[in-house]
């Protein structure tokens, strides 16, 4: 296990963290398993790609991705999920239906070719780090992942909104009873979670490319991360991302036969003995 593989695992973990943190926020606070989260990642990637290619700016692409997916999230929450509030399984299955539709519509709009989000010139090429030649862009993803982790931790632990979110994760009824408009907190969280997915799509689209089944793949990874890390815990998501990221990378190198078991095996074992994940909170 050399520096190269360590960096590979870490950068993949960073991308997973960005996407899974959005998923976990929604699951933690709203108790919705948003199976359309992967489709939001893909949509964000595609929209970001189109804008970045036409405008020549990665930053604009990022902004477009975030806005577009937040809008999708808004439509999903206010337009569809509100009809099934409170019914956990109905919510899950409804988001599954949405995932099907989004995936198919993406195929219609962008076709089945693989696209890569263009990397800004400043991030092209590589650097020598820890004795290996490593692409600058991947390091950028790693740094961004860490920054987003810090930002989210600050949000959750240093702001009022964050306090409300944490309280809502533990006991939404109490929060509502204290006169807070919990609906707005929910909506805001849903938008934030979706935006993270969309931004993840743009970032991932530059080094992992965008293609019709990318949504299902990232969703599976996000599920694994959140299940292992536990519901409602940001640190849990971070740990889960690192575990899944490294397991995946190492698994590819050392046990290529067991591609899926390396992740699902531990996931199932964990679920069997600690259904709430490593740092999860009971509902």
């Amino acid at each position, binding site marked *: 296990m050399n520096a190269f*593989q360590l960096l*590979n695992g870490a950068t993949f973990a960073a991308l997973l963290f960005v996407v899974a943190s959005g998923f976990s926020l929604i699951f933690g606070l709203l108790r919705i398993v948003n199976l359309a989260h992967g489709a939001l990642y893909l949509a964000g990637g595609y929209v970001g790609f189109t804008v970045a290619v036409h405008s020549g700016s990665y930053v604009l692409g990022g902004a477009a991705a975030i806005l577009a997916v937040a809008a999708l999230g808004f439509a999903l929450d206010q337009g569809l999920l509100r009809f099934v509030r409170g019914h956990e399984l109905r919510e899950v299955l409804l988001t599954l239906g949405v995932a099907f539709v989004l995936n198919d519509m993406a195929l219609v709009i962008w*076709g089945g*070719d*693989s696209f*890569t989000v263009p990397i800004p010139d400043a991030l092209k090429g590589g650097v020598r780090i820890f004795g290996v030649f490593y692409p600058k862009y991947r390091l950028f993803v790693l740094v961004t992942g860490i920054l987003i982790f810090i930002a989210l931790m600050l949000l959750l632990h240093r702001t009022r909104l964050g306090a409300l979110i944490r309280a809502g994760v533990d006991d939404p009824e109490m929060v509502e009873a204290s006169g807070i408009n919990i609906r707005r907190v929910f909506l805001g969280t849903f938008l934030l979670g979706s935006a993270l997915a969309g931004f993840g799509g743009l970032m991932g689209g530059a*080094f992992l490319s965008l293609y019709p089944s990318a949504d299902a793949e990232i969703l599976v990874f996000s599920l694994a991360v959140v299940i292992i890390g536990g519901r409602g815990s940001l640190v849990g998501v971070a740990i889960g991302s690192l575990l899944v990221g490294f397991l995946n990378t190492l698994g*590819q190198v050392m046990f*290529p036969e067991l*591609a899926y078991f390396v992740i699902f095996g531990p996931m199932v074992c964990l679920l069997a003995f600690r259904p709430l994940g490593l740092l999860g909170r009971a509902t």
Partner: protein
Amino acid sequence: MDRRQFLKSTSVLAAAGLVSKPWIAAHAQATPIKIGVLAPLTGVVAAGGREMVEGTQFFFEQVGGQVAGRKVELIIEDDASVPDTALQKARKLVEQSNVHFLMGNLLANTGLAVANYVKDNGTPYFIPIIAADDLTQRARIKNVVRVAGYSASAFTHALGDWAYKQGYRKIATISQDYSFGHEQCGGLCQVFTEKGGEIVQQFWHPLNTADFSPYLGQIANMKIDAVFAMENGADATRFIQQFASFGLKGQIPVISAMNTTDQSIIRTLGGECEGIVSAAHFAEGSDNPVTQKFVKDYAAKYEKIPSLFGFSMYSGSMWLAQAIDKLGGKVEDRDALLATVGGMELTNSPLGKAVKLDAYGNPIYDVAIRKVTKRPDGKFWNVPIETYANVSQFWTYDPETYMKQPTYSRAFQGIKKG
């Protein structure tokens, strides 16, 4: 209606059927030729599937939608890149839409599922894209014919020879871990090692591997002369990009399967793909006038340079049309159709050279060793740098002897020991 009435009316209808059969046959000429086209329009390989349909439609449009005086009706079904769906749609086309023959499919597993189905009911099935070696070797089915197609290891045999001629002696292979990948790698490894080369290591990864960095890290540290990549679809795009982003482009030459440098991949890439060498029957950058005309017309209509998928279905349709012409339009006679297709030579194909099938139902081509080159307009395409004439699916081996060795798989890669 009650049972007696039902039986009576059925028997009347049956009798009418017996009498009217010759009358119907005589009028068959007036009814359209129904072709069942199966392609993955959704799912993992949706991009290729779309181009398959375009290639087919392009050909029949050019001949005015008619062959031998009969109208041609294309009935297109989506196999969703999944064998179960392919089987379901094949059934629908044969049993409900009553097509005269089936054509298409992209992924080997979908093709094998459909081949298994037609084995029982004798419907002719033409596979310009499915490359599973055994369908024209050990597991031959008489009504499955590879018109204008190729078997997976055919071109890599030639590539292995070329690689050795280039002076490469140590190669590592990286490939998707499924039969198509095994067969292509096996073809290269067998010829390369028999000439004296060495396969240093073989990397196999599952389909849809997002991150190649674990493999690239290992490849970077190897002392090899070249790396052979067998990647299809999104994996190809990612491999080529990540290879370049890790600074390996220019350090280690890449030779690849034709799918990896196919237009469907390189048209969305930039300079990362330049210089990759692959082997194929079709090179869109060839200076053969017939090929050039085809590429230009196709690009004018579909706004993209044709890929293997478009080209193969176009040529396959052309082959079938020529056969149906020879038959005077009588596609209902399955044996005659299969015999004609098998015995004739395809002329005027976009390859610019006549093509015929060998005794096992597989075409014999001139194989072009082609390199990805930049066009003046900035796009990339494959230009031939050398040609191997009349390459059989068995390379230079005797067919019977060759077929005694097992099919290429992960366990058997044809590597010569010692």
